[in-house]
C-alpha cells in the first residue's frame, strides 16, 4: 500500500445514529465495501486521512418495497441485488448492471451507496438510477433530505452531498415500460465502462448514459425527439447533446458513435 498507514485513522460506527454524530463532529470519509477507497489508498492517491467504517451498519443492508417504492439500502451489495426477487421484479436492468460489475469478489463487497457516493461517471448502476428517476436519501444528524438522482451530481465526482451526510438509501419508484441496459466495457468481466446505457420505454423514453461526460447524463433532447418525432431526428438531437472525451480507455469518436448505435438499438429492441 502506497499510503502511509500511520497517518491514517479509522473509526467504526455501530449504528447509523452514531455514524451521523461522528460525522457531525468531524469530517471523515465513509468506508462501505472499500472497493473504491482501498484502490485509492493502495495507489497513494487519496488525500483523506480520517475514515469512518460504516460496513457494520446492518440497518442499511436492506432491500424493501415501501408504498410501491423500491428502497435499496446504501449497503446493499451487487450480490444482494442480483439475488433479490424484488429487484428482479421491479428493476431487472439493475440486475443486468450488477451482474456485470467487476467480478464476484467485487460484487460481494461493492455497495450501491458506494457507487452513488463515489460518483465515477463510469459507475454502472448510475445510468439505471438516472433512467428510472430514482431519489437519493441523505441523512445527517437529526435531518433527512431527498434529492432527485438526476440532480445529485454537480460535476466530475462532485455531488450535492455534504460531508456530514450519509447516503442511507436510494428509492426507485415503480418503473412502467420496458427496461433496457447495455454496458460496453474494456473486456467481458473486471471491466470499466467505456459507454453504458440504461433506458426505459414507457409513454416516452428515458435514457441515461454513463462514461461519456463528467457525470452520468440523461439524454433529455433525445428523449424529447423520440417522444414526438422519428428515430433519425432523435439521432440529430443525440449528436447535439453528447460530447465525450478521449482518455486511456477509449476515444471520443468511439464513445459518440457507440452511444448513437446503442440508443438506436434500445429504441428498436423495445418497440
Amino acid at each position, binding site marked *: *500500500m502506497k499510503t502511509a498507514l500511520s497517518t491514517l485513522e479509522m473509526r467504526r460506527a455501530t449504528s447509523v445514529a452514531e455514524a451521523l454524530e461522528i460525522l457531525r463532529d468531524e469530517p471523515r470519509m465513509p*468506508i462501505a465495501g*472499500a472497493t473504491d477507497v482501498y*484502490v485509492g489508498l*493502495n495507489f497513494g492517491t487519496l488525500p483523506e486521512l480520517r475514515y469512518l*467504517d460504516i460496513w457494520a451498519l446492518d440497518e442499511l443492508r436492506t432491500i424493501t418495497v415501501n408504498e410501491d417504492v423500491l428502497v435499496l439500502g446504501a449497503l446493499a451489495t451487487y450480490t444482494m441485488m442480483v439475488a433479490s426477487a424484488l429487484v428482479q421484479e421491479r428493476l431487472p436492468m439493475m440486475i443486468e448492471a450488477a451482474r456485470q460489475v467487476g467480478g464476484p*469478489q467485487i460484487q460481494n*463487497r461493492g455497495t450501491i451507496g458506494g457507487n452513488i457516493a463515489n460518483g465515477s461517471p463510469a459507475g454502472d448502476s448510475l445510468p439505471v438510477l438516472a433512467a428510472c428517476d430514482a431519489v437519493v436519501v441523505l441523512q445527517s444528524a437529526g435531518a433527512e433530505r431527498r434529492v432527485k438522482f438526476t440532480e445529485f451530481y454537480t460535476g466530475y465526482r462532485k455531488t450535492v452531498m455534504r460531508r456530514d451526510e450519509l447516503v442511507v438509501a436510494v428509492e426507485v419508484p415503480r418503473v412502467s415500460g420496458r427496461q433496457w441496459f447495455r454496458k460496453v466495457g474494456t473486456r467481458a468481466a*473486471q471491466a470499466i465502462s467505456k459507454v453504458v446505457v440504461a433506458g426505459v420505454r414507457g409513454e416516452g423514453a428515458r435514457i441515461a448514459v454513463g462514461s461519456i461526460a463528467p457525470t452520468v447524463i440523461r439524454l433529455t433532447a433525445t428523449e424529447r425527439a423520440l417522444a414526438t418525432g422519428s428515430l433519425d431526428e432523435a439521432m440529430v438531437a443525440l449528436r447535439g447533446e453528447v460530447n465525450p472525451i478521449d482518455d486511456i480507455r477509449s476515444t471520443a469518436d468511439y464513445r459518440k458513435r457507440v452511444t448513437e448505435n446503442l440508443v438506436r438499438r434500445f429504441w428498436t429492441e423495445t418497440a
Partner: protein
Amino acid sequence: MRFTLNGVATDVAAHPMKRLLDVLREECGLTGTKEGCGEGECGACTVLVDGVTVCSCIVPFGQAQDADVVTIEGLGNAHGLQQAFMDEVGAQCGICTPGMVVAASVLNEDPSLEEIRVGLAGNLCRCTGYAAIYRAILSSARAGKA
C-alpha cells in the same frame, strides 16, 4: 482485534486500516494468500470473509472484526480441489492458484462450465488459459459426487 481465522479464534493487534492481505501475510504468517495487483483486479489475494470471496488487498482489517476469515491454508491439505488442481495441472506457475482454489471452493457443488467461468471471472491467470482450471473443478465435482 478478534476474528476467526481458519476456524481458530484469533486476536491480532494491527492498525484497523492495514489491508487484510498484509495482516494475514505479515502478522499471521500465512503467505499462501498472494498479491498480484493491490487493486482488486487479479484475485490472487482472494480469501473468504463470512463465507464469501473478497479481495483481501482492498479490505481494511477493521472490517474483519468478529468475522470468519478462511485462507488457502484453512482449506487444509486434503481438500478435493487441491488434489484435482494437481491431477489436471490446474496450477502452472502457481501464483494465482491459492486465490483460484479459494474462489472455486464456494462454487456450488456441481457447477456447470458456465457457472465456473462466471464464478472465477474475478481471478486472473496468465499461464493456463483457464482450461485446465475448469477441468480441475469439474473433475473435483465429479469425484465429490462419486
